[in-house]
């Protein structure tokens, strides 16, 4: 996993924008209509989800090699 994905659940409204713009199908919505990380391994930390999330609910940070 190249990245750390943080989700502020209280903010997420499940609009699906992050899901739609993720080039690697990392994200999905659950039944309660909130986003979750379905396939974290595939994340390339492009940040498209964070960029367009209208609710500032999802954040992607590059994992810093320790």
């Amino acid at each position, binding site marked *: 996993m190249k990245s*750390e994905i*943080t989700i502020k659940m*209280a*903010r997420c*409204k*499940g*609009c*699906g*924008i992050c*899901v*739609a*713009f993720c080039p690697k199908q990392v994200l999905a919505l659950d039944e309660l*209509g909130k986003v979750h990380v379905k396939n974290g391994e595939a994340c390339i930390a492009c940040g498209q989800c964070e*960029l*367009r*999330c*209208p*609710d*500032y*609910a999802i*954040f992607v*940070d590059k994992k810093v090699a320790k």
Partner: protein
Amino acid sequence: MERSYEKYFRQNRLPHLWCPGCGNGIAMKAIVQAIEKKGLSQDNTVIVSGIGCSSRASGYMDFDTLHTAHGRAIPFATGIKLANPELNVIVITGDGDCTAIGGNHFIHGCRRNIDLTVVLFNNNIYGMTGGQASPMTPLGKKATTAPYGSIDRTFDAARLAEAAGATYVARSTAYHVQHLTDMIVQGLDNQGFSFIEAMVQCPTAYGRKNKMGSAADMMKDMQESAVMKAAWDKLAADKKEHKFPIGVLYKEDGLDYATAYEAVIETAGGKNK
């Protein structure tokens, strides 16, 4: 993962009340990021808005903020700027707020070249009141007050701003969020009336009624329809249909109103108070 722009929000008022997928949140973030880029102080920046979904933004932003009456943000903002030219004054408005009921104030703000940065969240509809047509609802689209499809021709707000005297005019979209931020930064750079039209999706009151799919679908439409100004200018006329230019559309040098007023005070023999 704390983002530095979060400090510009009133955390206790988030999550905001906009619908799932509403583009207003994206445009609001673009504004605070522009403010951050410009390094404007939170203490001497004022956010002024009218009434509408978009105009709710002022309540979420941690500055001195003013939620005025429908259509009247620009006169209030003008008063603030003239009373205290040290303040950075940013106006957030909607397509109805700015170009319908507020249309006169909009063109007169442009004419005076008062130093405001006006960001119009254009969702092509009256969101707040549930989906009536605005002066920027495209021809043929449906709205609750245009049940048979709109026959009212639309404003090109950017063109109007330019003709009225604005000295900086730009457009971008919620899809092009970084570009939008940049357009706002340049607007803040301009000492004079700066107008930025931010196209935003309203999946609730506009998208649903017009079968435009999800919020993401509406953003993909923006991606497809928006053409950078330079490319636009070269585009053949027949290729322009259903497309629109984004970028800096107009720019000129011009004395802003508050600065021009200094000369009046000087002539009158007064000192700035």
